């Protein structure tokens, strides 16, 4: 990256500069752990739960970043598809592992369709994908409400009254997933030194990581990276840029849908109209905390991010309560940190882009001058 001067203090400084966010988080956490007074076992258990709950969702963000489309705020669409799927699974009273598998299967076509629509809209808004995907998630939230609050039970059949609102149509504000709760996490759960490890969920997540590593090497994965590097060059090389971009968003949305099913089976309770609203923001913040940027993210960033971000999440309310005597402050603090981290990452990305552009301009000028001399 900054391969010009390689003296070691400069290198160290560059390292700190490139990893400012994770380092900042490690410092915050290091300060907060003794203040909060939580036991290590409790903390490890909590972190393990949140890792298994969130990692898959965050993995869904990697592919659009690879294709140069930035942070996919449209992952919310996948989350909505998963919620619709879980409403059906609950209504048909298919519980446990079969219920989860069914929900995943139902979510895939819905996610794919939404992803397709999202991808096409984003192709019409090249260069401003992030703000557009962010607005799409709001827009689809309206459509989701229309479907779930008004069409379900009136047009789309809903059988059971514990899902339906008393007025006869629409889904209740909370869908009870008690009988699906942790049925995925419960399989092959092992206890390592007092920490409960949901082995199957972890295996699924690891499997997904391997698939992503493999995917990067396929023709399609290479195409995506080419598109992410430079759309015009990719087009000249014969890659169908539009199609590649749509595929990356479809994959991301489908993965987000499956990830949301995993997330909700761990929670065991679904807030029908709000579960998805914050999920995009928190996943993106976690990925960025792990040291990712808008144009570069790795699997390592995902795991480091989940651990650092969610440790802060666990610690903040307690630390806030101890320091100021008010637990609410800690809650506001963690929301502030989430937004702050995203803002910082976006600013860093834009300034880097501008600097690169200026650098290229200077280079061009230099070459031109050389040419004139000759």
């Amino acid at each position: 990256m900054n391969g010009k001067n390689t003296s070691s203090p400069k290198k160290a400084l560059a390292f700190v500069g490139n990893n400012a966010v994770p380092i900042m988080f490690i410092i915050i956490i290091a300060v907060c752990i003794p203040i909060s007074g939580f036991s290590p076992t409790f903390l490890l258990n909590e972190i393990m739960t949140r890792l298994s709950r969130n990692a898959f969702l965050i993995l869904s963000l990697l592919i659009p970043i690879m294709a140069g489309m930035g942070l996919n705020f449209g992952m919310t669409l996948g989350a909505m598809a998963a919620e619709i799927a879980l409403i059906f699974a609950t209504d048909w009273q298919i519980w446990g592992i079969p219920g989860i598998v069914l929900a995943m299967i139902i979510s895939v076509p819905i996610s794919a369709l939404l992803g397709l629509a999202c991808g096409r809209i984003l192709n019409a808004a090249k260069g401003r994908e992030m703000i557009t995907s962010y607005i799409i998630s709001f827009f689809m939230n309206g459509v989701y409400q229309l479907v779930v609050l008004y069409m379900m039970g009136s047009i789309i059949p809903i059988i059971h009254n514990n899902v339906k609102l008393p007025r006869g149509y629409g889904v209740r504000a909370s869908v009870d997933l008690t009988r699906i709760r942790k049925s995925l996490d419960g399989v092959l759960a092992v206890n390592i030194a007092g920490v409960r490890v949901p082995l199957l969920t972890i295996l699924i997540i690891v499997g997904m990581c391997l698939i992503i590593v493999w995917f990067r090497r396929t023709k399609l994965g290479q195409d995506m990276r080419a598109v992410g590097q430079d759309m015009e060059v990719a087009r000249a090389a014969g890659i169908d840029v539009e199609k590649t971009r749509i595929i990356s968003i479809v994959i991301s949305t489908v993965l987000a849908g499956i990830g949301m099913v995993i997330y909700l089976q761990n929670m065991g309770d679904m807030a029908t109209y709000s579960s998805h609203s914050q999920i995009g923001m928190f996943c993106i913040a976690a990925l960025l905390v792990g040291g990712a940027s808008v144009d570069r993210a790795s699997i390592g960033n995902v795991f480091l991010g989940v651990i650092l971000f969610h440790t802060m999440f666990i610690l903040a309310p307690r630390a806030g309560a101890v320091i100021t005597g008010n637990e609410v402050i800690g809650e506001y603090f963690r929301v502030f940190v989430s937004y702050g981290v995203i803002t910082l990452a976006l600013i860093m990305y834009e300034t880097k882009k501008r600097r690169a552009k200026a650098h290229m301009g200077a280079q061009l000028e230099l070459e031109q001058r050389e040419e004139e001399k000759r």
Partner: protein
Amino acid sequence: MSEYVTDSNRTFMDRVRETLRNFGLPRLIIAAFLLLMFIIAPFTGVNLWTQITNVINRFSWNVVLVLAMVPMVHSGCGLNFGLPVGIIAGLLGATLSIEWGFSGPASFVMAILIATPFALLFGVAYGWLLNKIKGGEMMIATYVGFSVVSFFCMMWLVLPYKRPDMAWGFEGTGLRTTFPIDKYYGGVLSNLLRIQIGRLVIPTGTLLFFALLAIAIWAFLHTKTGTAMTAVGSNPTFARAAGINVDRIRMLSVIMSTWLAAVGILVYEQGFGFVQLYNAPFNMALPAVSAILIGGATASKASITNVIIGTILFQGMVTMTPTVMNGLINLDISEVLRVVVSNGMILYALTRKSEVTR
């Protein structure tokens, strides 16, 4: 030959078609929808004059916030998704004015006066940042707004406000999420010179206040600096070549937008009758953005007319739909409609081809 068709050769239908194209299909649908609402309203047992009063009222509360979009769009900073930055300045003005014991109309004037230095300060910082990241303004503005709002969520709890009308009684620290301001500046503008004809009530004061600001902005845009601002927005490279300091003009536009947002929230509060703190400013940017887009603005072009038409259409839709829908089919899907229409409008603007090439 056909390339040289002159104005006089065009048929009437061509002109109609072109006008329609310039007007934009979504806008046309919304306008037609609103008209339909007004036509249906009397048949559903809703009093038309009450409804019109409601629409005018809502218009008068929100229009200054929409006006706050104009300077930044003009200088090419895009739609001001960072509206909450200015709103926070306004809220600081409001709470400090009340805390320091002003009441009645004086508290409104003081709120504006106190909010001004904050708006300037925030505007300078916000403008400096936006100058650093040209091209990515909208996304970063959104998140800068969110960060500021969530930071002030903590501040409202921590800052030593004491006045019992605003602070939590039992703990003595921290402000309430919502508090009424009828003792302070609630209705100071809307009750000023109020005209009442039967059921039709016109909040003349608020409308005049808006007119004053709108004329000021319009006049400003026709001064030398204002023209420079438009030049920067339409072609920064050309503007720079003409000797205009692009960064300074952009900074000025951001400061103006931020100040207008601060005043806008105060106008909103005096009409609404309550001050809303904490998470409330989160949801204020999108309605204002979509209102000005509905009014015919784009991410790079906006006029006072766009502000007025857009706010009438948007607020008209928001106010009319629930009552009419309820009266008609006893089903209130207005909230869903609002979300879909307002965000749909923003999406439409973001995906227009002419916008992308900017």
